[in-house]
């Protein structure tokens, strides 16, 4: 494989004595979508949060487009933080509970990173934010506050907030799990659209249909390890591990 966009090597995470992740190795190819599935508590969200170091791994390394998130060259906390801030601005993240800034309107939410991280002028930032909100179908909600938007609309604002930074990779942490069923499709449509445009995406999801249709590769996790990994056809049609079979049986025959 050519140089991957995301390379995870030997990643482990403990919370006290509780081992959430054990020896994770994963490469994500440029322009591909990887779906991470697995039972709750399998460590899939923690893995995603380790990729941009919202959760600092206990051991192991993460590289984004060849750049490591931590380096032994950084002596001070300030240097480490600086490196992390730069890399995080190249990794978009979408959360299960949206986490929009409630005191900012939709367009201000999207502008925030452009202003405080990229130091754009407010009028430039507003133009870009407006274009991005139009792209996710919210051109008529620029000045609405999060409390005035539906869950699906809030999540699309959150996607725009991440996308406007032109990230190299997007992380979706159960982005549709908190949505009413009839709103899920709006968000999935945006995500499908992004995948088809060649954005690198890592998607933790319970939407098996989405994983099957959109993902190039599906990763099944359980007990803090990657149990198996492969193209959706092989994972969904002919899983090799007993744990994968059991999990898929549960989620597919509801």
């Amino acid at each position, binding site marked *: 494989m050519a140089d991957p966009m995301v390379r995870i090597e030997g990643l482990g995470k403990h919370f006290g004595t509780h081992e959430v992740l054990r020896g994770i190795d994963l490469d994500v190819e440029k322009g591909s979508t990887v779906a991470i599935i697995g039972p709750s508590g399998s460590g899939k969200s923690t893995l995603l949060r380790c990729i941009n170091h*919202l959760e600092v791994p206990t051991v192991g390394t993460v590289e984004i487009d060849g750049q490591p998130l931590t380096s032994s060259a950084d002596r001070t906390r300030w240097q480490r933080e600086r490196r992390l801030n730069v890399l995080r601005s190249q990794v978009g993240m979408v959360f299960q509970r949206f986490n929009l800034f*409630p005191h900012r309107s939709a367009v201000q939410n999207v502008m925030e990173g452009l202003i405080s991280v990229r130091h754009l002028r407010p009028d430039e930032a507003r133009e870009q934010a407006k274009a991005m909100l139009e792209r996710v179908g919210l051109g008529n909600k620029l000045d609405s506050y999060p409390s005035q938007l539906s869950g699906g609309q809030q999540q699309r604002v959150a996607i725009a907030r991440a996308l406007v930074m032109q990230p190299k990779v997007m992380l979706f942490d159960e982005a549709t799990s908190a949505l009413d069923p009839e709103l899920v499709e709006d968000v999935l449509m945006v995500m499908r659209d992004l995948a088809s445009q060649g954005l690198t995406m890592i998607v933790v999801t319970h939407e098996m249909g989405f994983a099957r249709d959109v993902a190039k590769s599906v990763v099944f996790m359980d007990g803090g390890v990657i149990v198996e990994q492969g193209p959706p056809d092989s994972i969904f049609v002919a899983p090799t591990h007993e744990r994968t079979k059991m999990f898929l049986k549960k989620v597919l025959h509801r």
Partner: protein
Amino acid sequence: MGLDFSAILSRWPEFWNGTQATVFYSITSLSLAVTIGLLVALARLSFIPPLRWLARLYIDFVRGTPALVQIFFVYFGLPSVGINLSAPVAAVIALAINSGGYLAEIFRGGIVSIDRGQTEAARSVGMSHWSAMRRIILPQAGLRVIPAAAGEFTNLVKGTSLLSTISVMELTRVAQVVVGVTFKPIEAYIAIAVIYFVLNAAIAQGALWLESYLTNKQGGAHG
């Protein structure tokens, strides 16, 4: 026993001056206390352990000792180590140090009450710790602490009456002086009680207005 306010009313310029002094000491101490409170709250939440310990020590000390003792310490105590402060300066410093301790805990409570997801969202777009604090967390925390901070402001206004003990001519001191001349203690103390009450009612109402104004400005009720 009948109440006779005529002697008090004829002294209204003195009460007016006292009221102005009380308002002046309240506002100057409050501005300083808010600054101290914010810095100490941030120190209390800092990732540098000694800063956290110092902030904790300051808060515990200020909240664990009487305000009157703190005022005496600054005004009567510090001169013995060569720091001579005039009564008004000592008054403002002592009140600000006292109130800053309470405000620090109120502010810290407001900051930690903001959902972790807010910090995570801010950091995930690449914002620094400080930038996230200043642009995302503090504006939301500020709105949330208004009721408690207004309560502390009220305490501060009432606390200025302690300054009568170091001869600062605020309301309570004025009342004492007037009583000494007119022998009308009930009337004099009723008069200043009413004035304190009106000042604090204004603070309570102002806080409600500020809260609803900022809530509307920030797009209505938050989840």
